[in-house]
């Protein structure tokens, strides 16, 4: 069980959070013009890397705010957290 550093509240137990999958996947504006394949990609396809992964979390049993984290999916170690709207930090 991990300690997750909510960028608004500080380190809290993993049980206070929920996972939201890959970060920085914007809802496509003007999606009426997307092909079925492009739309399918947006709805159903997310990256699934083994290694650092920028992903969304929500501090659902805390401040209820969404934020992003870069986490190594091989070790589960969180390498960086950052707020909504902030750019993905460069991690080693």
């Amino acid at each position, binding site marked *: 069980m991990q300690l997750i550093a909510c960028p608004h509240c500080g380190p809290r137990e993993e049980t206070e959070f929920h996972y939201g999958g890959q970060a920085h996947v914007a809802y496509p504006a003007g999606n009426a013009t997307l092909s*079925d394949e492009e739309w399918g990609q947006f709805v*159903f*396809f997310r*990256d699934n890397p083994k290694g650092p992964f920028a992903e969304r979390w929500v501090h659902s049993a805390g401040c209820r705010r969404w934020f992003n984290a870069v986490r190594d999916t091989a070790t589960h170690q969180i390498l960086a957290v950052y707020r909504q709207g902030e750019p993905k930090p460069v991690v080693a």
Partner: protein
Amino acid sequence: MTAPRTPGADLPDHPDFLWRNPDPKPSYDVVIVGGGGHGLATAYYLAKNHGITNIAVLEKGWLAGGNMARNTTIIRSNYLWDESSGIYEHSLKLWEGLEEDLGYPILFSQRGVLNLAHSLQDVRDSVRRVHANRLNGVDAEWLDPQQVKEVCPIVNISPDVRYPVLGATYQPRAGIAKHDYVAWGFARRANELGVDLIQNCEVQGLDIEGGRVTGVRTSRGTIRAGRVALAAAGHTSVLAEMAGLRLPLQSHPLQALVSELLEPVHPTVVMSNAVHVYVSQAHKGELVMGAGIDGYNGYGQRGAFHIIERQMAAALELFPIFARAHLLRSWAGIVDTTPDASPIVGLTPVENLYLNCGWGTGGFKATPGVGWCFAHTVATGTPHPYNAPFTLERFTTGALVDEHGAAAVAH
């Protein structure tokens, strides 16, 4: 004192010989990536059903050391949708003859499975599944709480628990098997038929020329391949990326656990989605349980302990007598999940590259069935009718086989 009992005396012995450990040859007709249950079964059926024996199964670790070694061994076919019950029932029929076919004591025990219902909607969904199963030729019954108790006397059917048992579906032909023995049975037969089982051989790249796969680059050198079949479960996304394919998969830790050996108390398999319990008692006497899936993506083969704690609380709601059983060991596998909780088995945009993935929590029970169908797909270049619905394209067209939306029963 009573005469000493030896409850473990009747377990079968293993054969004296299982497999060679060959070095990889420069070239194979078919290279199967992933030496788990699915990879081994695919190799076996390619050789047996299709006469293709110049096959390598490449395993980055030890054979059947991934999810095959980590699952809770539940076998059943009582899925809701026609597409699912088709392939799982095909699999169950193969399970019923597998011990003889493989000549290996796989301890397949058709002790039945109960899927409990805890709410009125659970009841509706369960009855719906029973009716659908019957019309699909899958044995299924709806049991009221008293009948549940008759099948499994230790289930607490008291109305006083937080989410009382309102009934259950029952598939008598369902059961469990010994996972390692199944894998070794397939491996031994495949080896006998000439398949090279190559361990400690990690695939690090795929050679693709003109949209067609021609070989694999591995930690033990480059191997040319007429066809490449991916059967790497949780690691499929990583491999697919080597071919430039993006798949609708997410890999999650899934934990399981066992207790110490106990005198027989639990005659069947009990699953409950609402309170997250999946439990059977294995042949030697240990309770084997599956937990809920960990929420985040992970390749770490480890999960968070609060999942196990919740699992124990749920287990004791249904089985109060487990209170002083002990958690002996917990572990995790990596399951590759799809948006509709159904697998992807078939062709890919890369010629001669075939895909079998996305089984989530259902992979073990599908082992012979998907091995059979995937072998057909690889051998003929055309999906077998049973895996034809499980295309990658369905995520474009919307023709999903949504097994968690409808009467979801995982594992």
